């Protein structure tokens, strides 16, 4: 436990909060890589997932991508991409790897959010005269939001966790302090920054969990069955497992 008091001392030490390589700077770098990768992934995966969910075309592709992505070791991909792109391009290369990690869960979330909607609701929307666009925007997208946010939540976890490893290709982020601590045998720094990145992951997870909860349209929430044991879980459970697919690095 002594080590942990040292870690907290390191975290609150004013010397670590200013200058180059300070805690705020590392956190900003970390969040910067995370945000860049997430934005790219959302731009690619959300429209694609909605398109697949709405038209029903290309499901096999989504299944294949999310399944295969589980097996890919992102730690290795990081090295691979940087070696192929060249050291000068290591920053965009690592953002692309982080983006590749985020795409499958977001894709699965966007797609399965539309997939689990009761077909009768969509038929009803069509029969009252909604156009395909209206069905997508006013019915399918709102109803699919909780699962989409579930997908975003597991994506952001993967990205934050893997962004710790980009120090190994010479970039910053909180991982830098951890690895420097390991190399210098400075336990306070190594533990302190490990706690820092855990806190960061937990905070981001909590934020997306809130989105996930409050993204449920009001009418749906009113009629929802709260007790999980009595709901037909077969459908919901499988949809959730597709979204939260894999443990991040």
């Amino acid at each position, binding site marked *: 436990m002594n080590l942990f008091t040292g870690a907290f001392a390191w975290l609150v030490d004013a010397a670590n909060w200013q200058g180059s390589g300070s805690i705020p700077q590392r956190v900003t770098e970390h969040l910067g890589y995370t945000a860049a990768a997430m934005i790219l992934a959302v731009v690619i995966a959300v429209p694609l997932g909605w398109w697949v969910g709405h038209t029903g075309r290309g499901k096999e592709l989504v299944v294949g991508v999310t399944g295969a992505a589980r097996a890919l070791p992102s730690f290795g991909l990081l090295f691979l991409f940087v070696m192929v792109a060249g050291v000068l391009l290591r920053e965009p290369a690592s953002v692309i790897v982080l983006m590749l990690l985020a795409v499958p869960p977001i894709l699965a979330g966007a797609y399965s959010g539309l*997939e689990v909607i009761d*077909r009768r609701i969509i038929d009803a929307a069509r029969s009252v005269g909604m156009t395909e666009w209206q069905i997508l925007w006013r019915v399918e997208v709102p109803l699919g939001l909780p699962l989409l946010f579930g997908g975003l939540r597991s994506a952001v976890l993967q990205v934050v966790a893997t962004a*710790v490893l980009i120090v190994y290709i010479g970039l910053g982020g909180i991982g830098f302090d951890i690895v420097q601590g390991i190399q210098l045998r400075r336990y306070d720094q190594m533990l302190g920054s490990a706690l820092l990145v855990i806190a960061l992951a937990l905070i981001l997870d909590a934020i997306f969990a809130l989105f996930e909860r409050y993204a449920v349209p009001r009418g749906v929430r009113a009629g929802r069955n709260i007790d999980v044991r009595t709901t037909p879980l077969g459908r919901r459970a*499988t949809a959730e*497992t597709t979204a939260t697919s894999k443990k991040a690095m």
Partner: protein
Amino acid sequence: MTWVVSNLALIIDLTIVHVRLSVLPIIIGFVLAIPLGWVAYRFRLTRGLILTLVGLLYTIPSLAMFVILPPLLGIGFLSEANVLIALTIYALAIMARSVADALASVDADVRQAATAVGYSSWSRFWLVDLPLAGPVLLAGLRVVAVSTVSLATVGIIVGAQSLGYLFTNGYQRQILASVLTGVVMTVLVALIFDRLLMLLGRWVMPWMRVGRTPSSSRFRPRRRSHANSSSHSRLAPTAEPVSQGSAR
């Protein structure tokens, strides 16, 4: 290719070590997850508590986990136990939720029928609930297996030998073939684990051969007759074990 040929012994060695490093956490995680998942499923109070706790554990980035475990448990920082325990925690975190979901997926009518024909809650759990939860359990276990194999590569940072060695060493020495081989072998090991678990599932749960595997039914079109297909996936496994049980 020449690099692969001249380093074949190393690659095979690392693959074996990697398999050894991943198998133990998968098995221990699965075994521990069954009681934990059951408690989470059974009582509403513990459900929130346990699922939140495993959710939090799951959130911890692996490198941070490797760093905080040794002082917490009093084990060596560079010991293999460090990586084994971290991987087990992750496996448990994914699997406990899976077990809770799997048990909840068992049809309530079947469960009541089992109670009605005289099962005690202990024997009902082993003879009715668990077999019927099998397909969802298997799907969860396959996720655990694949992600554990991929996660084990990070263990190299704290000195646990694995295919991750091909990444770090290959990057330092700028040998692309080494990193590429590492990625390919990791994926290969993961896919083999996945296949083996699927076969094991078919062997343990013969009734699945008739129906569909949970992983494929998950994405089957539910477009036209959803009421039909959602009950179908549960009907296939229900038929067999219950009739077996009542005949006994």
